[in-house]
């Protein structure tokens, strides 16, 4: 299982390469700097949230409220700005709101012991509702030119959007924390067996609370990026993103049961989905076919490891050289 998991991540990496090649073959408008910048810009919010969601799902929890949190953060930013708060301060306000949303989810899950799936379905409605309560039917536009330039523009002299710098930094931090610090280990341990983690001196509840808070904060960051990119804050933005983000994380090889996953698998998955969307779009496929492709990839991501595992077990059983005289109960001892 674990050994295969690594292979699946490589599979996603290979798929990314495949998707790029496919795009280049299908359309001569695909493989160029300008399109790459479009793809990067398109996946930024998803990717930022997916980084945090990876931790959360590995720890065995889930957050369906991320899109609503993103939007509430954006709405708060807009609300504050419209109320006359300096834009920079409003950005901080938006981030704090995201953090607060995450903390509230975490509080409900860790302190009240409610299941995260149910809780975050409810806060999905709650945070969305608060966006409406804040902005009513008036989206906020006419944001400062400078900041919109950051949101939509590119780094001078390159094709890279400004937000890519942010994404790269956050992804590097997330990768490092997940795979090279004890906090990452804690996350995995909790996902494999939360009770054993508690008995091993890991602060399970506090870690989970932190992970929810981080997911909220990252949703807030994505909310700010979203606001700048679309030069507006409205109460009905980012609807339905939550399932796409979760799908991307799962496609990246993270197990919904917790305990398994890698950061670069998720990053490759998010990029793959962005690339394949662009490739198919440029090849003239309709938006509807993109849905089918997303769903199909998600299914393949769980079916393929299963099938390979079965095949491998079969070959292992058949191979004659593996007659090492280790006798042990494979069953339940």
């Amino acid at each position, binding site marked *: 299982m674990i050994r295969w998991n690594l292979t699946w991540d490589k599979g996603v990496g290979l798929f990314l390469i495949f998707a790029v090649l496919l795009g280049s073959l299908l359309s001569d408008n695909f493989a160029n700097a300008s399109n790459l910048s479009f793809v990067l810009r398109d996946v930024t919010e998803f990717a930022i949230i997916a980084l945090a969601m990876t931790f959360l799902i590995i720890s065995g929890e889930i957050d369906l409220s991320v899109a609503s949190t993103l939007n509430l953060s954006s709405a708060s930013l807009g609300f504050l700005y419209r109320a006359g708060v300096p834009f920079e301060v409003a950005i901080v306000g938006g981030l704090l709101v995201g953090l607060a949303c995450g903390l509230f989810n975490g509080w409900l899950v860790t302190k009240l012991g409610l299941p995260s799936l149910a809780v975050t379905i409810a806060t999905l409605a709650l945070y969305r509702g608060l966006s409406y309560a804040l902005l009513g039917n008036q989206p906020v536009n006419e944001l400062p030119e400078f900041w919109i330039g950051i949101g939509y523009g590119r780094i001078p002299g390159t094709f890279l959007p400004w937000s890519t710098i942010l994404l790269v930094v956050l992804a590097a931090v997330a990768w490092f924390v997940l795979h*090279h610090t004890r906090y990452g280990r*804690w996350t995995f341990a909790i996902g494999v067996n939360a009770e*054993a983690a508690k008995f*091993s001196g890991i602060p399970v509840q506090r870690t989970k609370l932190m992970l929810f808070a981080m997911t909220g904060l990252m949703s807030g960051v994505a909310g700010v990026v979203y606001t700048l990119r679309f030069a507006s804050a409205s109460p009905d933005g980012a609807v339905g993103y939550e399932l796409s983000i979760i799908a991307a994380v799962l496609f990246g090889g993270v197990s919904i049961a917790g305990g398994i996953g890698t950061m670069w698998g998720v990053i490759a998955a998010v990029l793959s989905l962005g690339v394949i969307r662009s490739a198919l779009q440029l090849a003239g496929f309709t938006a509807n076919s993109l849905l089918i492709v997303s769903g199909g990839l998600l299914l393949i991501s769980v079916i393929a490891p299963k099938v390979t595992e079965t095949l491998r077990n079969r070959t292992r059983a058949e191979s004659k050289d593996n*007659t090492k005289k280790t*006798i042990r109960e*494979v*069953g339940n001892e």
Partner: protein
Amino acid sequence: MVLSSPDTGRPVLEMMHVAKSFGGVKALVDASLTLYAGEAHALLGENGAGKSTLLKTLAGVHKADAGDVTLHGKPFEQGSTKASIEQGIAVIYQEPSLFPDLTLAENVFIGRQLTSGGLVDWPAMERESRELFARLGVNLDPHQKARGISIADQQIVEIAKALSTDARVIVMDEPTAALSSKEVERLFSVVRNLREQGSAVVFVSHRLDEVFALCDRMTVMRDGSTVGSALIADTSEVDVVRMMVGREVSELFPKLPPKIGDVVLEVKGLSLEGQFSDISFEVRAGEIFALAGLVGSGRSEVIRAVFGIDRYDSGSVVLNGQPLPPGKPAVSMASGIGLVPEDRRQQGLFMASSIARNVAVTLLKKLSSWILLRKKREESTAEAWAETLQLKFATLADPVERLSGGNQQKVVLSKWLATEPQVLIVDEPTRGIDVGTKAEVHRLLSQKAQQGMAVLMVSSELPEVMGMADRVFVMREGMHMGTLDRDEADPEKIITLATGGVVTR
């Protein structure tokens, strides 16, 4: 399927030369087991000897690769749990497999609910299970959900389940592992009853005293093969152990002379409503301090509270004169306490994770430079401990679920010993592990104590308590009943204290 009359002349069940492999691993090579009606038959062997696989073949979980299995002289249909049940086999697993959300009545009849007119007949099921419980001498409410009932009661429900199927072959896989001695007695009388009614009972246990008290015949397995069968009356414990391990076992409780030092851990007036009240004791460096009592007397709850898994209502836990904050295992760990928990699979290990990760999980801070986790150091540490404890494994990257029970327990021990604790709390340290490993664990604990570590041990095995402990703290229903020194402790005194002087209810 029901045998009309017990026929002791002809075997009920014959399993002949059964073999079974998983992937490339041979779990059963040449296993045979013959059962007669009306006997209690002990199936013995170390962990990994193949007992469970053999029993699971009988239960229909596995299908044998080779060999003959006949039931009442007819071929036995293998490979389906349903078919096994229908053929009159009932298996009571080591870990009771009840459905917590269902009522006890439905648990008894699960998969074979009584029906009238095609619909589930609840009153009938409740009535019949009430009768079964009465027959087993317990007062359980069939209406009650199974969630939260004690392990002993779960065991009884499993037996009721077996009785309700009119099973002629009843397999009990270590049924006593989690039972107090009183409950064991209750179980034994049930088994004797079953035997008299003509059922064949297969009894798996690591406690040889029980085997000799209860069983008529025995079969010993080693390395996937049957070593031999014999009448209990014709053998001795020493013979059995030799057959099981294939060698002489030196000493089961290699207690070293203790070097008792200063008080390390002080528990003062600890209380938790409904669990235990006013528990006070001191544990000294170099001492093995045992908490004895019946299962459910609150011992595990006390040590969970001491370590910080659960909070407590009042009292305090003091380590080296410093009070420990309640409910903070991380702080306890950092201050020098370790806890080897009762339930290895659920609490002790990350079954799907590698051996290395399991060993290192308590050391992550030590293995880090600032926040960077040094993976090389992690591996070398795990390797060193694996060597120290003579762990048997293929590679450190293997998930611990591939290890045998004894080796798994060694992993749990190493992860705590690696923290170099001043106080090591061990809860049922040798439950469900084989004789050989048991002795190793005892030797290890004894050594560590001699080197100055304080050991706080919870054990339901009286021989273990007697053999290891310097002092015995006896509990009953959450209360402290008395403390005995090593030289004044004997089984009778402990049991009297643990049962409050009244044995029967």
